[in-house]
């Protein structure tokens, strides 16, 4: 039997896509009929160009796709360090740079793309580089060893990668971008602005809207001349101003090329010559070039399929991108610029966290079309497949981009959803790998077996979740729901309310909850609304959300009466005011006691007496004071330097100022402060949520203290502060707590719960590492400016006052259940022995 004639397949270029083609050819049996010769210009076999930047950390071996230097299949021959100089479609031969001529049956061009270097004067000086190959990176590394400043021309995706690399190499780094924003192709203006903030915070200099006119220097680069701007010094310059397909071979052979470059191919990736194919970045299917690896891989599969006689076709690709640049997540997918007719945009921006997220949604709200994520791209893994598979959106699409990992876990991806776009792996395939059919027991094993997550890695979180969900099917899941009505934490709810600007509980529960709420979620929402809107807690429908103490602006006592605790800021009070308190107590028959918070409690007021008591207090210059509510209680003070022989600062003045500044602030739990005039600490400041202790030079600020059931000592946040800085830090600290703590979580456990603990707080409050300082201060300024005396306001509003009656139909009849006896010469509650009836003879008023 004569051996069948074997054919020869020549592949020009051994990059990512050329390698994929060979792999697929081996896996799918094409080598049964074809010998393959791969010719690669680089000295190394194919490597992971997508992860090029990690070369500096992990070295070339880690990146290699073929560490052994050859394929297992002996029918594949690899010729490296050699270029294909030309080919002749007539004779079907290729000419190599070493003079070899190889005859082919089929030729695949996989020559990739080359960085575009704009022809500015000086572009070829020593010290100018491009960023494409390991060789490029080695050269950059060598040049950086003796340099201090570097510049990258181009602020696109690759330019930022290159800037990242220069910064990692220890250079002061400038990014020069002609467009008005960074990553102009992937992100919009707002996203670009957020990106600039992140990048500048890392110490890089960003010049947008800046055109490079010349590379300065004689032999070696010295800097860049920019149009209308100061020149930028630089000893290393990296060009990253886009890429151009390497289509010269095809041009020379007379094949069709696309208008904007690239070898023109049809949907089977065949060029205008039927035995020549082109794939990857050198190819332009339908005239369009794709600068990403996933479309290239798809093209490689299509060609192998075609050579095997299959029907595969390349019909366009997902241009989604996700990357971590300088530690900043950036992702852009689908119709990121809302180009679709009628498309809606849903934006979540949090300058505090440095996060910008945008969803583009179809006009009918049912379909996700695309989006942009900056600062936190964790939702990308779920969102991108939603675009790709056209899955219907959930009812509250914004939950997909709200923080704290809501996005995803609950949003069941259908089995056919593509989880990994680089390698086209669906959820079903992953489930198969972990299920009966497969033997995988971990996400990493799944990545090995299915390739999902092995390329750009952006789908790894979803791979992990799919695997975990599979294994946790019966396992216990930690439920962080607030209550049965809201499947989210207080912080998540806080963000939901902020994003939508909700002002009514009804709207919130309708859109994000179920049922009608309860005694947990209602007060929580009331507190969130109070923090965000600074309105009156008894305004309109918010009244019924309040716990009884907030609802009646006083503390309920065991017999249904209330206590009133007039505010005495810092514990300082004039004799005249002391007398007023005594008189009010006398006139209303109230029990009085000095509290642990340096003020005086008036107990035993019937609900209907409260307004009259407040009236007396307000007229005498008091506020009724918060001993109720999750809000600031008191800022306790010692006598300080005014009197005390040890005092070094005026602790009373500061305590008064702080109490007046933060009074009324609604918070996740109550807040207490203290100020001591010296280290003897008579005000027990370190037992408070925030405590200040005077030093010779200023103030030490301590945070996270409390008494109660689990006492905690406050810890030093910053030392020797002047008063202005102290207040600024406190503003930031308290607002950050208000925004991010859980319901009923005091500052100490909240700090413990933060990743990084007190150090994290210091980064945010003192170092302003997230750049949210001014935003937090502004939020506090709004609180301070918006503060009003809620008791006085109530007195002025008949609607609110109408609530303060014993019985709606008998407002003048006191509740018979309340009675007092005398103890130590004061009135105290008489214990009730059961329901009391006044009998039917008591006349009652007609309804008003």
């Amino acid at each position, binding site marked *: 039997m004569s051996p069948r004639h074997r054919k020869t397949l020549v592949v020009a270029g051994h990059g990512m896509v050329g390698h994929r083609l060979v792999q697929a050819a081996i896996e799918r049996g094409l080598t049964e009929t074809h010998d393959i010769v791969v010719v690669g210009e680089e000295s190394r076999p194919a490597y992971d160009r997508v992860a090029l930047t990690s070369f500096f950390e992990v070295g070339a071996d880690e990146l290699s796709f073929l560490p052994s230097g050859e394929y297992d299949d002996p029918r594949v021959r690899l010729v490296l360090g050699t270029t294909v100089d030309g080919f002749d479609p007539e004779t079907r031969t290729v000419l190599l740079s070493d003079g070899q001529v190889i005859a082919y049956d089929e030729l695949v061009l996989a020559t990739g793309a080359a960085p575009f270097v704009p022809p500015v004067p000086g572009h070829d000086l020593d010290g100018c580089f491009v960023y494409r190959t390991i060789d490029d990176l080695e050269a950059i590394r060598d040049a950086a060893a003796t340099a201090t400043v570097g510049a990258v021309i181009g602020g696109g995706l690759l330019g930022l990668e290159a800037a990242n690399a220069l910064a990692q190499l220890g250079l002061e780094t400038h990014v020069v971008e002609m467009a008005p924003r960074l990553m102009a192709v992937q992100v919009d203006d707002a996203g670009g602005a957020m990106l600039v903030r992140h990048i500048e915070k890392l110490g890089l200099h960003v010049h947008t809207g800046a055109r490079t006119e010349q590379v300065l220097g004689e032999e070696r680069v010295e800097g860049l001349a920019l149009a209308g701007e100061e020149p930028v010094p630089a000893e290393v310059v990296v060009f990253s101003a886009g890429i151009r397909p390497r289509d010269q071979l095809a041009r020379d052979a007379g094949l069709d090329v696309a208008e904007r470059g690239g070898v023109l191919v049809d949907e089977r990736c065949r060029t205008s010559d039927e035995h020549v194919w082109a794939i990857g970045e050198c190819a332009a299917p339908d005239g369009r070039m794709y600068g990403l690896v996933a479309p290239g891989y798809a093209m490689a599969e299509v060609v192998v399929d075609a050579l095997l006689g299959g029907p595969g076709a390349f019909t366009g690709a997902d241009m989604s991108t996700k990357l971590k640049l300088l530690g900043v997540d950036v992702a852009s997918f689908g119709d990121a610029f809302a180009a679709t007719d009628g498309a809606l945009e849903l934006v979540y921006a949090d300058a505090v966290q440095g996060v910008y997220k945008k969803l583009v949604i179809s006009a009918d709200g049912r379909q996700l079309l695309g989006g942009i994520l900056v600062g936190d791209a964790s939702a990308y893994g779920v969102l991108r497949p939603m675009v790709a598979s056209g899955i219907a959106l959930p009812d509250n699409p914004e939950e997909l981009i709200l923080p704290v990992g809501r996005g995803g876990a609950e949003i069941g991806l259908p089995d056919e959803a593509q989880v990994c776009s680089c390698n086209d792996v669906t959820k079903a395939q992953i489930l198969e790998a972990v299920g009966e059919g497969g033997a995988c027991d971990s996400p990493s094993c799944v990545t090995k077996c299915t390739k999902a997550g092995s390329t750009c890695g952006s789908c790894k979180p979803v791979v992990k979740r799919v695997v975990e969900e599979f294994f946790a099917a019966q396992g216990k899941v930690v439920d962080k729901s607030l209550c049965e009505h809201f499947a989210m934490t207080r912080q998540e709810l806080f963000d939901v309310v902020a994003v939508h600007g909700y002002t009514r509980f009804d709207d919130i529960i309708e859109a994000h909850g179920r049922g009608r709420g309860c005694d947990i979620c209602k007060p929580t929402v009331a507190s969130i609304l109070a923090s965000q809107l600074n309105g009156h807690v008894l305004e309109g429908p918010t009244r019924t959300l309040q716990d009884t103490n907030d609802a009646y602006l006083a503390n*309920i006592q065991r017999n249904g009466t209330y206590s009133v605790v007039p505010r005495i800021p810092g514990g300082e009070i004039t004799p005249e005011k002391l007398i007023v308190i005594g008189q009010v107590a006398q006139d209303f028959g109230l029990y009085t006691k000095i509290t642990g918070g340096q003020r005086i409690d008036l107990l035993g007021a019937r609900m209907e007496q409260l307004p009259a008591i407040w009236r007396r207090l307000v007229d005498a210059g008091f506020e009724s004071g918060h001993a109720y509510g999750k809000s600031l209680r008191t800022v306790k003070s010692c006598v300080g330097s005014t009197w005390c022989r040890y005092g070094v600062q005026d602790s009373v003045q500061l305590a008064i100022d702080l109490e007046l500044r933060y009074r009324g602030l609604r918070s996740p739990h109550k807040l207490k402060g203290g100020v001591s005039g010296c280290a003897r600490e008579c005000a027990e400041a370190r037992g408070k949520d925030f405590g200040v202790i005077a030093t010779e030079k200023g103030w030490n600020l301590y945070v996270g203290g409390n008494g109660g059931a689990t006492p905690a000592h406050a810890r030093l946040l910053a030392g020797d502060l002047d008063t202005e800085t102290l207040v600024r830090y406190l503003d930031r600290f308290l607002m950050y707590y208000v925004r991010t703590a859980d319901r009923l979580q005091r500052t100490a456990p909240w700090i413990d719960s933060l990743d990084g603990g007190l150090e994290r707080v210091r980064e945010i409050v003192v170092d302003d590492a997230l750049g949210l300082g001014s935003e937090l201060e502004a939020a506090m300024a709004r609180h301070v400016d918006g503060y009003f005396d809620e008791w006085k306001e109530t007195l002025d509003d008949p609607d609110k006052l109408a609530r303060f009656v014993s019985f*709606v*139909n008998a407002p003048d009849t006191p509740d*018979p259940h309340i009675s007092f006896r005398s103890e130590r010469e004061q009135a105290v509650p008489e214990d009730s022995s059961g329901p009391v009836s006044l009998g039917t003879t008591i006349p009652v008023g*007609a309804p008003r």
Partner: protein
Amino acid sequence: MSTSTDATVLTGYTLVCRVDQIEVEGGVAALVDGVAVAIFRTHDGNVYAMSNYDPCSRASVLARGIVGTRGEIPYVASPMHKQAFDLRTGQCLDDAAVRVPTYDVRVTDGMVHVGGPRQET
């Protein structure tokens, strides 16, 4: 008591207030035959009445509780220690042994009328 001016007179019922004097998901206390009764209005427009006396804390306070739902059950949480009471039956949802008396209640022409204690099992 003066019911003569009212459009509707219901025998055995006491007219206590206009329905809009009760906030949605709020409550008021009323005196009905000398007894403190808490009257609530829910989101779906229903009006319920039960004794104002919270047997757990032994205080007359239930009208001041937060109204909400547990599953399908409309309830009020005592403002004192938050025990939940089914608005329809007075049953304490946290303690099967505790139940608060409920009252018949009718709304006519925007007016709330409370009848006698309900005799139910």
